[in-house]
């Protein structure tokens, strides 16, 4: 949380993203607000269709029609980004704000050498040809694609998945941005490679004072890297707070359910407590709390009114009528 004296690196305020036109518009993201300080890692957790990836794209100004931001603001170090022209946004993107995706193969140009692609990212933002080349080699060295001078001449298909993701990180960070959005950056990788990339990401973050937004479905990865966690369900934040609090004392039955349903490598669980049903169709969201059809605690009130986020202390909030009880385990699923 901000202490009032320093400006957060990134602020998202009342963000709403819709796809299509009313009355049939799909609300992909609704009233999402959060901020990330320099050096802080905030994880956005959710399943497919929860709105977590769209949130990341909206921050980057990369929501394509028919999708559009219909409400809310995104601010970078206090400076509003929403409402900028595409050419203004392009200057910010890659300079102060960068993103890496799950699949580096589709994000890299297959017919250009990786060193040239990184250099170009620096060139676009004003570096001379020689300086861009030098920075490209430096970054490759820094992310462990070595020997950098030789690897810079490789084409993406000549590199392994882990090496390609390192190249993506080099490209994203070559202009020393303040904010990095990483959307499932290790999901396509093997666990041993994933561990390498997560360690690299943490090192780079500490070194550069990056504000990191990690979009992920993997609670294990999130537990290892996040300072704070936002849990999204059906387009909304249903729980947020310090990672320790969210994992140890979740106040939303959905968060509890997710945690209880994942098998753990450190624990033998006889039966997994699966959440029944499936996430709702975004074109036909349930009334009241969107999770109520799958919730063992649901009462009439849950079907009628959508609960607001309630404070549970220490910046921990959950959007459940029974959040206090759920959080302390007085109501269990």
């Amino acid at each position: 949380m901000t202490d009032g004296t320093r400006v957060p690196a990134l602020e998202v305020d009342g963000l709403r993203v819709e796809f299509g036109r009313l009355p049939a518009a799909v609300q992909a993201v609704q009233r999402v607000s959060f901020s990330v300080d320099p050096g802080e890692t905030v994880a956005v957790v959710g399943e497919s269709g929860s709105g977590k990836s769209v949130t990341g794209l909206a921050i980057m100004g990369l929501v394509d029609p028919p999708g559009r931001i219909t409400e809310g603001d995104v601010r970078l170090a206090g400076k509003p980004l929403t409402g900028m022209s595409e050419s203004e946004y392009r200057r910010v993107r890659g300079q102060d704000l960068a993103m890496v995706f799950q699949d580096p193969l589709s994000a890299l140009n297959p017919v250009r050498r990786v060193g040239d692609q990184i250099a170009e990212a620096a060139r676009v933002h004003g570096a001379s040809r020689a300086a861009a080349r030098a920075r490209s080699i430096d970054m490759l060295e820094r992310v462990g694609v070595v020997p950098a001078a030789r690897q810079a001449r490789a084409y993406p298909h000549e590199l392994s998945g882990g090496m390609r993701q390192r190249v993506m990180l080099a490209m994203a960070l070559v202009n020393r941005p303040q904010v990095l959005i990483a959307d499932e950056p290790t999901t396509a990788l093997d666990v041993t490679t994933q561990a390498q990339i997560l360690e690299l990401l943490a090192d780079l973050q500490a070194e550069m004072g990056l504000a990191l937004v990690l979009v992920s479905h993997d609670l294990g990865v999130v537990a290892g890297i996040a300072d704070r966690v936002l849990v999204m369900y059906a387009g909304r934040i249903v729980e947020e707070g310090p990672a320790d609090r969210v994992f140890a004392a979740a106040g939303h039955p959905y968060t509890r359910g997710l945690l209880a349903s994942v098998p753990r490598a450190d624990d033998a669980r006889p039966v997994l407590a699966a959440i029944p049903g499936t996430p709702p169709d975004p074109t036909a969201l349930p009334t009241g709390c969107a999770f109520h059809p799958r919730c063992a605690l649901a009462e009439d009130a849950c079907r009628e009114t959508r609960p607001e986020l309630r404070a549970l202390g220490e910046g921990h909030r959950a959007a459940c009528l029974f959040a206090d009880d759920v959080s302390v385990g007085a109501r269990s699923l």
Partner: protein
Amino acid sequence: MSVLLEADGLVKEFPARGGSVRAVDGVSFSLAAGETLGLVGESGSGKSTIARLVVRLLEPSQGSIRIDGDDISHLSRRALRSMRRRVQIVFQDPYSSLDPRMTARSIVAEPLKIAGRSRDIATRVPEVFALVGLGPEHEGRYPHELSGGQRQRIGIARALVVQPEVLVLDEPVTALDGSIQAQILNLLARLQSELGLAYLFIAHDLAVVRHMADRVAVMHLGRLVETAPTEELFLAPSHPYTQALLSASPIPDPARERARQRIVLTGELPDAVDPPSGCRFRTRCWKAREECAARPGPALEERGQGHPVACLFPLADRIPDTAE
């Protein structure tokens, strides 16, 4: 328990640039009736090739696969057909493994047709739909009209319709969302206890394997490096590669994640066309010494009851941060 399926010295070679690659290089294992053997490894380890060999979508280059003593390694097409009644496979991706132009009913009925049992369709198809938790209303739907979890249930129903004894499950929940994974894992556990099925459960996710398997075999670049009863493997992993895998497997608990001492491997998975001599893990292993490079590399050696390890310097100690 009696051995139902037995693989002995399996080798599968594929042509590759300038030579060939042994995707599977001398793998032996057995599976008892009603048992789950977990097969774990990273991409390129050869675990999916094993899946395809066991259901004979691929023919082994060397070695044998026996079911109840019958060698199925080199059967004729006709003989394969009756073998497939006994061994079925469920694939990772229910999106691409179901024909989008067929209804759920025809997808599930197809193995019966191939087996020449079309007359059983009317009774058997509704039975397996119910078995996997789907109703008559799902029978007429096309794959795109079903959710990911429902599609995987169709994949399981298709495998079960011919009443097999062995199911090969190749990453059956990897493509599914968290809240749906648990539903499918619970379904598979229930089906196993109701039907007495044997599972060859292939996955890269150690947490899922710990949950499902009775025994676990760890694969690295075409070879098995360690096999053990599940709890023993997780509490006392002995091959350095198994330790590295376990240590890299994230745990959904921030306090534990902070307290862990992670083994982060350096370097890349070696080229399978030209693997290192001797132990194929030695180029990434922090315990490797000169003798690890000696050919043909360490063989699996029994190091406790049913716990063979292929390492010259196996680690006997328990990992303090994952053992409880």
